[in-house]
């Protein structure tokens, strides 16, 4: 998985691409730390270029949500498509994390 991050006063956007699987645990840790260091209260993961996510990827998204909530930041998942959108639906992640089209 690769990402680019851009942050403004109110919102940080992370554009993700590739596959998000358990192998990305170190990269997700680094990403979460970067997100915690930005000012925005809305932390958006832009997923339109993310091709694949597995159950470990779901777990890492929940970890991100928890860590960000600890600093009063809201995690938002935006524009998930295809396989990623299906997995988010099956895992019922919308009950725990805000999902936007």
């Amino acid at each position: 998985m690769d990402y680019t991050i851009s942050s403004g006063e109110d919102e940080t956007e992370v554009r993700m691409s590739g596959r998000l699987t358990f192998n990305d645990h170190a990269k997700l840790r680094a990403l979460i730390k970067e997100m915690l260091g930005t000012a925005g209260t809305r932390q958006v993961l832009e997923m339109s270029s993310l091709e694949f996510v597995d159950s470990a990827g779901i777990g890492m998204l929940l970890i991100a949500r928890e860590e960000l909530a600890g600093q009063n930041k809201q995690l938002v998942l935006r524009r998930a498509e295809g396989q990623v959108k299906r997995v988010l639906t099956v895992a019922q992640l919308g009950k725990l994390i805000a999902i936007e089209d």
Partner: protein
Amino acid sequence: MPSVTTATLEGLGFPAGRLMQVSALCNLAAPPGDIPKQARGRILMVLGEGWEDQLAACLKLPCSGLIEAAGLSDQGVADLVSRAAGSAFYASFTSHAVNGHHLAGDVVAAITTSHPLSDDTRGAVELALHEAICNAMLHGNLHMKGFEGLSLQALENFGASFRQRLADPDMANRRIEIICSFDGPNLLVDVGDEGRGLDPSLRNESAACGRGFTLIAACCESYELLDNGRHIRMRFPA
């Protein structure tokens, strides 16, 4: 669906001399130099050094199996070739080789060279197979729990434990076996590991993990756990 007994052995980074030896042990067709390309039929590939960067191009050809040869003698490779007989597709990889490589994608690409699947079925098989392979590697062969909490510390602990276990040759060389076959209209995908089987000590109530079987169940028509959890059989409408 032709069985592996009609396949040709080819090597990818695997020494030609050893490939000849394995071919002789299996009584299979000799390597490519002796057989015209169009007559080779389906290819059972033995992977040696540096296969990772070359594999994608090779999977455009009809492929009946992938055997990663790390740590195996010629007889060991031949034994796995024999295990591949009768299946639509066979794969055997060490945990070390599986790490960082999207094996489920390769398997699906190989199956579809001889049996096209709809996009939906292809996606479902790929995800369920990926989850089964991860379970086999992490919880089976490496005997690991998943993330043990909703925290950065849990991620760090997971990473440290993963690196430590993958550095253990005994664990890293444990194999994951994938067998695909057709049962009438259905595709059966079997994934097996060399771990201890279902272990209550690995039970993890953390909210960060435990969704693997949920995803598998959503993708396949049915699944069953065999051999005390070392083996999962998944059924898909093909």
